[in-house]
């Protein structure tokens, strides 16, 4: 079975898994941060990510209409400035929307049961999906996928598609891959430093570890929760641009799959743990890529969730999760 030991295929899938995994990790951080602080599975997070990619697509269309970029050159030359702007703008957009979601939907339920909050999150998810459907129905002819609202839309390559390893190489590495690392790694480092060293970051950790004590020490918990939603949303928005650019297509339904992967990643890594979400994202990306290639795409979800179940059996708190409840 030469297929199994073809190192080129293996390397290619590793690369694919790594790139997608980094994106999943970025989304997973949004789940894990919110869960860490208010123990809410923010079901709407994946859909927020979808919304970010729709904004990115719209902005790319606008840039084309304004003559800022040439449609014929998409994938030929690299539009770094556009990519950078999109990451920033979509990040801020999703951060803002997430903030609003918390304020309008979750904050009034802060003292309600966990179940009510969860139902609210599912409701928000539905609303956003339908906003996406509506958005997809707007005339955005620049993009492929036709005018049908529900149809997946082509997202043009913002950076060069040329193989950096040379035309002959079987393994393809493009700027699209590198861009992902160039954005996600600094973001993850920045987040880690922020949480570790800044006053707000300390307050976030303190709130996650003991909300009463945090209050007693002067932490305005609502402000901390708001900041958590804003930051998680920003990361999701940044991820949405990377995802759209890397996978070349967006659809109003993509939030579900991405959200599922990212949530699984967060649980796998240990929900509440930032390094756990990063590790979990990478793992899910890798496993998906390997399974797609060597098991069959139709089995990939089965493989991913079997892995999840298996890991949770042996480590119920996830890979990097806390061992047990702390002694009090």
């Amino acid at each position, binding site marked *: 079975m030469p297929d199994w030991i073809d190192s080129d295929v293996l390397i290619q899938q590793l690369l694919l898994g790594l790139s997608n995994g980094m994106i999943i990790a970025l989304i997973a951080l949004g789940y894990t941060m919110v869960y860490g602080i208010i123990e809410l599975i923010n079901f709407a997070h994946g859909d927020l990510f979808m919304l970010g990619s729709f904004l990115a697509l719209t902005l790319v269309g606008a840039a084309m209409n304004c003559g800022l970029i040439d449609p014929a050159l998409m994938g030929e030359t690299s539009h770094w400035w556009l990519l950078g702007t999109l990451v920033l703008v979509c990040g801020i957009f999703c951060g803002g929307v997430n903030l609003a979601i918390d304020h309008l939907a979750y904050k009034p339920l802060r003292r309600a049961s966990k179940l009510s909050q969860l139902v609210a999150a599912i409701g928000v998810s539905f609303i956003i999906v339908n906003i996406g459907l509506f958005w997809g129905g707007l005339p955005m002819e620049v993009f492929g996928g036709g005018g049908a609202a529900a149809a997946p839309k082509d997202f043009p390559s913002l950076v060069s598609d040329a193989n950096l390893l040379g035309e002959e190489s079987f393994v393809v590495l493009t700027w699209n891959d590198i861009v992902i690392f160039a954005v996600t790694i600094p973001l993850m480092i920045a987040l880690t430093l922020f949480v570790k060293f800044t*006053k707000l970051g300390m307050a976030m950790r*303190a709130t996650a570890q*003991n909300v009463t004590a945090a209050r*007693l020490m002067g932490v305005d918990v609502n402000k901390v929760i708001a900041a958590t939603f804003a930051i998680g949303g920003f990361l999701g928005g940044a991820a949405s641009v990377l995802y759209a650019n890397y996978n070349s297509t967006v659809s109003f339904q993509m939030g579900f799959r991405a959200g599922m992967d990212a949530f699984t990643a967060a649980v796998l890594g240990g929900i509440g743990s930032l390094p756990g979400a990063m590790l979990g994202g990478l793992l899910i990306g890798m496993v998906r890529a390997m399974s797609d290639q060597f098991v069959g795409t139709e089995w990939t979800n089965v493989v991913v969730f079997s892995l999840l179940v298996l890991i949770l059996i042996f480590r119920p708190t996830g890979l990097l999760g806390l061992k047990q409840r*702390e002694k009090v």
Partner: protein
Amino acid sequence: MTTSSTTPLLEIRGITAGYGSIEVLHGISLEVREGEIVSLIGGNGAGKSTTLHCISCLVGLRAGEVRFAGESLANVAAHEIVGRGLVQVPEGRKIFPRMTVLENLRMGAYSRNDRAGIESDLEEVYALFEILKSRTSQLGGTLSGGEQQMLAIGRALMSRPKLLMMDEPSMGIAPLLVTKIFEAVKALRTRGLTILLVEQNARAALKLADRGYVLETGRIVLEGTCAALLSDQRVQAAYLGE
């Protein structure tokens, strides 16, 4: 002992509070004057922690009023309390388990912005509880119970409070360590700190404090100087096991 000031530092007048449909405090009044150590004793479920939570604005009042340094705390949010000089060492210590000792202490100074003052207070806390100095980078959750209690007190002190409230600091701690902690508390008073001490360990608390209140099922049933309470027959029977 300084009892001269006319208005007490902390004044609680007829507070009623509870959870849901249950009323836990049925009109409690007590006061703490500047420089005093006052102890609030009572059995399980009497409402001691609830009283402290009312003062910290973690639990809302149904009636009555809490005044601190002459001002009502009626419309103050819980997180604003510490900035006014009122801090609580909560029951069960509630340290931040995945933060280091130093980070826990720094969280105590969260409401402050005077860097130099924070650094010098840090040294004072280390002087008070030497063990903490040798454990600065150890995670709070891995400390022993007694060490955690010292950390919790140190964390509270880092806010540079006027009034320190402690909820059962001796709970689950070896007697020797309790003595050490209470000695530290005494030392704090000589530096001008005022203390409200909640305890089930009535004997230790009454030996330490100036005055005491006895709380039973949400009502203050006795109050007086500690000497008087220690020799009171009801107190002896119910709380001192004599």
